Every structure is written in structure tokens, then in C-alpha cells.
């Protein structure tokens, strides 16, 4: 694996900068994680962060909404702003020489947004419609509703907000979300691409160095949602979500847990695809994924089957999950390792994915794992390690959420 050149710089106001120099590419990308995610929303105001992500680009610094948009387009910046449970994240990629100007503009967006009151209703109308669209798409809704029931509150919150809290979101609640949470301490900027690290330290320092630190917000963890739930919908398929407990990202077992899920669902030769789709033809889409946060983790599974076959799909899915502890073949693990190796190496072709990875790593681990280190950790896994893990943390105590015309039975035994 090619040696990576990764540098970190901690600014006095608490802002963390991580830069990965990639000399084989023409582009560069940044990711900025601001600790203002949906977990910090007060009860009854789920949606403040989502409103803010739309509102915040409607004018900033000395540019109005259109001027801002034109400036970013002229830099060729492909950008996005979105809300997660932990952070509001800003990201962009363009030709490397244009990155400094892009970062300067984003410092306006992050530090000097206009948040114009006369555009607030437009923000609301757009968000209300996108939440309504979600109601019309049961497959997408299943994932969100499963997270909502399986993760600990408030990490379980739908990051885009909910129709029920929508009436409580006002100009003041969203401005308050911004003023109380946006701050340089615990803010992380990742930059990757054909850039010079010293220049990036200067650019980011000029743009964010004089930003004043604030006291971090506190979050009180609550419980989880119901283990069994059903949402009635007149759909062609029944959409099935199943979740069970796994480990957090910093957990020493993380890579083992990742490989266990990979045996179930990494690639088309993995078990769920083979057993449920290839051998039984029950689904087009079936998968499991490892959803690891800083403090907890879950395995999230999805399967969609036409209504008369959905019960069989759920039964087989649960059986396959539970069967993992019965045995794992060497070849299954070898395939996980091969897939990990190739995706790690291919990451080096994408400045956007590297910028995101180094920023997230810093948040989750307080350091950056090199691609070589990840590869070593994956390579040292053995079948006994996986089985030991699965026996210690078996697939059980499932959260099951289905959306469709009729409820299904959960046969756990």
C-alpha cells in the first residue's frame, strides 16, 4: 500500500485540521464537521438542524444567496451540507488550486450566515414536502424508522426531522441551534488532495483562527424504542427492517464485528444474498450493514418481498443471522479481506472519500488510522476470532420493524 502523507494541526481555539497530501490527483476535497447534529436538538424540535442546513447557504458574509451560489459554481465546487446525528457536515471537492478560495467562502457560510427571516417559510415548505415524500416511499422510510427504534435516544432521531415536530420549528429555534452549537472547539476539518500542508494550515488559520470557542453542549442518553413495530402502508412489497446490537467504532472488536457482518452481507457471495435471493428468489434487495457510532453500534438489515412472501423472508433472515455462530468458513473470511483490501486501495482515487474518512476518524478515535493500519487489522483476523466474537455477541434480541399492508410474525426461536 502506498505510503500516506497525513498531517494534523490543532489550532488554539480548539479547531482540528487534518490534511492528507495526494500528489497523483488533480483535485482536492474538504469535509468540515461542526458539532451541531440532531442529538443536540431540544425535545420537540427534531428538525432544527435540517432547517439550518438549508437556511445556512441562503447568503453569508458579503454575498447574498445567489452570489454565494454563483461563487461556488465558478470555483467548480461540488458541495453538500447535511445533518447527521453528531455533526452538521460541510463538504466539497474541486480542482486543487481552487480549494483555498472554496474554504474561504465556507468560512463565511459556517461563521457569518445571514439566516434571512424572509426566507424561512421557503425552507419550511421544502422540508415539509421532503418529509411527505418519505411517507410515499416505504423502502426509504423503513431504514429511518428502524434506526429510530433501535438506537439509543437521541441518536435514534431521524436527522431530517419529523412531520410531528415541524410546527414547533421557528426562526428562533433554528437560530438558537446555530448560535448555541456552532463553535471551533470540537470542530474538525479534513482536507485531502493535491495540496500543500503548510499552505492549508495558513488558509484554514486565516479563515477560522479567530473564531471564539464556546462551552460544549451536553446530551443525556435515553432508552431505545419498541422491539416490535408495524406501519400500515398499501405497498406492493412488505419492507422489513431488523436490527441487533453490535459494537461501537472505537471498540477493540470493531474489525471483528465488521468482518462478521461482511460474512453475512459483504458482496454477492455473502450469506444473505445467497440464501435469500439466489437460492429462494425471495427478494431483489437484501442486506445487512454495520452501523457503528462513537458510543454504540448496531447491525441494520433490510429486505423487501412481495406481501405474500414476506413472512418467509423474515423467517429465513432471522435464521441466517442466528446461524452465524454455527460456523464460518476460511474462504468466507478470505473474501472479506480481499474486498477490504481493494476498497482501501481504491479510496486513494477519491479525494472526497479521503477527506471524509480522516475527519470522521478524528472524531471517532481522536487519531487517523492509515489505510495500511486498517489493512493490517483486517489481515490479522481469523475464523476463531470471528466465532469467539459472534458467541460473545450473538444476533439476538432483535428489533423488527415492518412496513406493508399486513403485520408479520416474528419467530425468534
Amino acid at each position, binding site marked *: 500500500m*502506498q505510503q500516506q502523507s497525513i498531517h494534523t494541526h490543532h489550532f488554539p481555539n480548539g479547531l482540528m485540521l487534518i490534511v492528507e497530501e495526494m500528489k*497523483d490527483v488533480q*483535485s482536492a476535497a474538504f469535509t468540515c464537521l461542526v458539532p451541531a447534529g440532531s442529538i443536540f436538538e431540544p425535545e420537540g424540535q427534531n428538525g432544527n438542524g435540517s432547517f439550518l442546513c438549508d437556511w445556512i447557504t*441562503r447568503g453569508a458574509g458579503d454575498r447574498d*444567496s*445567489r452570489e454565494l*451560489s*454563483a461563487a*461556488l*459554481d*465558478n*470555483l*467548480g*465546487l*461540488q458541495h453538500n451540507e447535511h445533518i447527521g446525528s453528531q455533526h452538521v457536515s460541510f463538504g466539497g*471537492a*474541486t*480542482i486543487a488550486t481552487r480549494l483555498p478560495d472554496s474554504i474561504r467562502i465556507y468560512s463565511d457560510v459556517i461563521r457569518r450566515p445571514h439566516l434571512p427571516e424572509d426566507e424561512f417559510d*421557503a*425552507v*419550511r*415548505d*421544502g422540508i415539509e*414536502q421532503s418529509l*411527505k*415524500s418519505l411517507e*410515499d*416511499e*416505504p*423502502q426509504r422510510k423503513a431504514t429511518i424508522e428502524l434506526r429510530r427504534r433501535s438506537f439509543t435516544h437521541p441518536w435514534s432521531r431521524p436527522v431530517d426531522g419529523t412531520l410531528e415536530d415541524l410546527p414547533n420549528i421557528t426562526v428562533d429555534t433554528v437560530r438558537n441551534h446555530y448560535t448555541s452549537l456552532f463553535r471551533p472547539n470540537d470542530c474538525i476539518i479534513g482536507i485531502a488532495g493535491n495540496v500543500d500542508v503548510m499552505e492549508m494550515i495558513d488558509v484554514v488559520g486565516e479563515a477560522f483562527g479567530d473564531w471564539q470557542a464556546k462551552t460544549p453542549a451536553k446530551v443525556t442518553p435515553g432508552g431505545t424504542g419498541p422491539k416490535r413495530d408495524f406501519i400500515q402502508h*398499501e*405497498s*406492493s*412489497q412488505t*419492507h422489513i427492517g431488523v436490527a441487533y446490537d453490535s459494537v461501537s467504532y472505537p471498540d477493540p472488536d470493531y474489525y471483528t464485528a465488521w468482518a462478521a457482518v461482511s460474512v453475512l452481507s459483504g*458482496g*454477492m*457471495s455473502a450469506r444473505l*444474498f*445467497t440464501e435469500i435471493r*439466489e437460492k*429462494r*428468489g*425471495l427478494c*431483489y434487495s437484501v442486506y445487512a450493514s454495520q452501523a457503528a457510532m462513537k458510543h454504540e453500534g448496531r447491525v441494520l438489515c433490510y429486505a*423487501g418481498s*412481495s406481501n405474500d412472501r414476506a413472512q418467509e423472508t423474515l423467517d429465513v433472515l432471522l435464521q441466517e443471522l442466528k446461524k452465524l455462530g454455527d460456523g464460518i468458513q476460511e*474462504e468466507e473470511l*478470505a*473474501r472479506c479481506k*480481499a*474486498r*477490504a*483490501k*481493494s*476498497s482501501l*486501495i*481504491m479510496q486513494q*482515487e477519491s*479525494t472526497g472519500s479521503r477527506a471524509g474518512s480522516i475527519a470522521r476518524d478524528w472524531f471517532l478515535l481522536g487519531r487517523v488510522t492509515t489505510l495500511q493500519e486498517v489493512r493490517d487489522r483486517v489481515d490479522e483476523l481469523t475464523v476463531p476470532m470471528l466465532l469467539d466474537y459472534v458467541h460473545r455477541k450473538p444476533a439476538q434480541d432483535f428489533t423488527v420493524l415492518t412496513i406493508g399492508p399486513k403485520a408479520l410474525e416474528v419467530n425468534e426461536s
Partner: protein
Amino acid sequence: MKFHQTTLSNGLNVIAEINPAVHSVACGFFVRTGARDEAGEVNGVSHFLEHMAFKGTDKFSADDVNRVFDEVGAKYNASTSEEVTMFYGAILPEYLPQTFELLASILFPSLRQEDFDMEKKVILEEISMYQDQPMHVAYEHAMLTHFAGHPLGVSILGSLDSVGALTSTQMRQYHADHYRTGNITCVVAGNTSWEEVLRLANQFCSNWPSGQHERPTFEAKPVGGKKVVTKLNSLQQNIIQMAAAPTSQDELRYAAEILSVIVGDDSSSRLYWDMVDPGYVESADLGYHDFDGSGAYLTFLSCEPDSTNENLERLRKIYDQVNAEGVTATELEQAKNKVASRVVLRSERPMGRLSSLGGNWLYRQEYRSVADDMAKLQSLTVRDIREALDRYPLCSVTTSTVGPLEEIAV
């Protein structure tokens, strides 16, 4: 990056763009066949056949196919459109030989009856899955209505009935007719050598049957129409409007493409500022779709059911104004900057180059480097866009909608 091309003695076109600066290599087979090439009673067979490829050959069983791809850590898949079926994978350079062999092999699958029966269930599930996605339902109806009477007026997936009735004999015949070297282009992009590509192509493709399946490519002259699919419990109204646009062989396609960015990109376009930004709609996009011998503008709208008519009116005004006045030099410049960086970013990954290389060869037998694309982009003028608008104005010939409304005014 260096381009190479050859034609094997059986007529198979092989092209490659070699780039030692990247970490991976992508390879793919582009088959010039899709839903438009299906005679009525076999609707859905191209897509079904794409699935059947992964059920393997006499040498590779269905399990082998998925297993070998995963053993080399390939990022692989296949897709079917109205006119192209493609099979592709991206891998680390050392695994190109196994991946190439496997991809080449599955283009000529055994089509075993038991696999056919099982996979049919999967396809029927896929059709059901898409029925739960309103914009997809609207897209299928828009295409069927807009291109009624033309080969492009077909569903890619087919219907529960048409796929349900398909037989493996029909599929074998379709495969024998369409999977011939004159219809297939082998494309490789990334970190490998031309010698290696030639060696692999000769080893694994030289026994493929030659010949070509001709498709009628007369330009569609849509008369238009309307299709309303009522789903009383839906909360949003999804609408697609279509109009004629330059064909994939027309030089005006570049102007049409940038026009769609200026008018209907998902950010800072006319539709964005006049409809999305004020919150009138959830989304409004204009896309330019080029087909073999035909072309179409597709407008996608999602809005509150009650505001459908006023939004369609807004859309009409925006398009009327563009048709009458064209676009400004400032808008064009901004769009060029936006698109130029998209081209560069996409080209940094071999998978990104693969589709562009394959598309250019399949449709026009031409190679276009990243520099060629950039030069063409920079050369576009407001007069080019004016010309495109004069020949293909933005309008709504066809409308399809899915949502609670029982009727809409168009």
C-alpha cells in the same frame, strides 16, 4: 493517459485508455442491446438476461461467479437501459486476468432452466420494489406515453405479466441474435498495459460469434399525451414531463447538456431559483437524455398535490422565457465551471472513465480524452444554445403523474 483500439478478427471492438497514475483498473463489456430491441412479447428480456449472466456458464456455476468476483475484491455489477446492457468491474491491477475472464464468460451464460425459474422470482420482486417508488412509476409511464409507437416506448424491467410469461427458449433466441461481436465493445480503463488487454481479449473473446443485430434508429416524433396514475393515499404529487431533444449523434447534444445544467441542475439553476429555493416544490430538475437516433428532455417535479397546476404554470413560464430569450453569457460561464470540475473529478477514477469511453465508442465510434471534453465544453457559446433551442425548444409534449390527483391540467 494513452488510448488504444483494435478490432479482433471476429469483429469485436476492443478499446483501452491506459493510465499508470491510478491504483485500479476497470473493465467492462458494453452490449448494444436493451429494452428497445425487444419485440413486444419478450418485454423485459434484456434486463432478465443481464441477471441470468450471473447464473454462470458450464465452467463457472452461479456460486462460482459471485465467489470469484468477491475473492478478487471486485466492485462489479451490471446494468440494463433502453439501449445498452453493460457488465463491469473495477479491481486492483493484479486481478485483471481473472476478472476479465469471468466477465467475458458470463456474457455467454448457460441459461439453465432451474436458474431461469428462480431468477424470474427475483425479477418479479424487483418490479414490485419499483412499484413502491412513485417517481420510478412516473418515469415508466412517461417513456411509454412519450415514445408510444416508437421502439423507445418500452419498460426496461417489463411487467409482471410480460416477465411472468417469458420462456427460456425466447431468452436463448434473443441472446443468440443480440450477443454478437458487432454489438459488443470491450472497454478497459486504468492501470494496466495494452499488451495485457490484447492478450486477454484474444484469449477469452476470439471465439465469440460475429455478426450484428441492426436496430431501427429513426428519430421519434412524439405526438405527446398524458398519463395520470392515482394513488389516493400519497402525500406528494410526482410529475414527469418530456419533450424532444437532440439525438446522441447530433453535435447539438453538447449544447443540450449544458442547457439542462443552466435551466435544471439541482442547484443554482433557473428551476432551482424559481421553484425549489422559494419552497414551491420539493424538487425540480431538467435532464437531457440522449438515445440512439432520438433524444428527450425530462423534467422531474415533486410538489404538494394542490399546487400542481400552479407549478406546471411556473414551469411553462420559465421554459417559454428560455425559448424566447436564450441563456446569458454569465449563466453559461458559471455552468461551464461547474461541469469542468465534474469532468475532472469523475475522471480520477477508472470506473468514471469506463462509462464515458464505452458510451462514446458505442454510439459514435469515437475516442474523446478528458482534454477533448474540456475543450469542447469551453468552446460552447450562447449561440450554440440558441441553435439547440430553435431546433428543440423546451416544452412539455408528454406528461405523466403519480399521486393523489385524479386529473391534472396540461
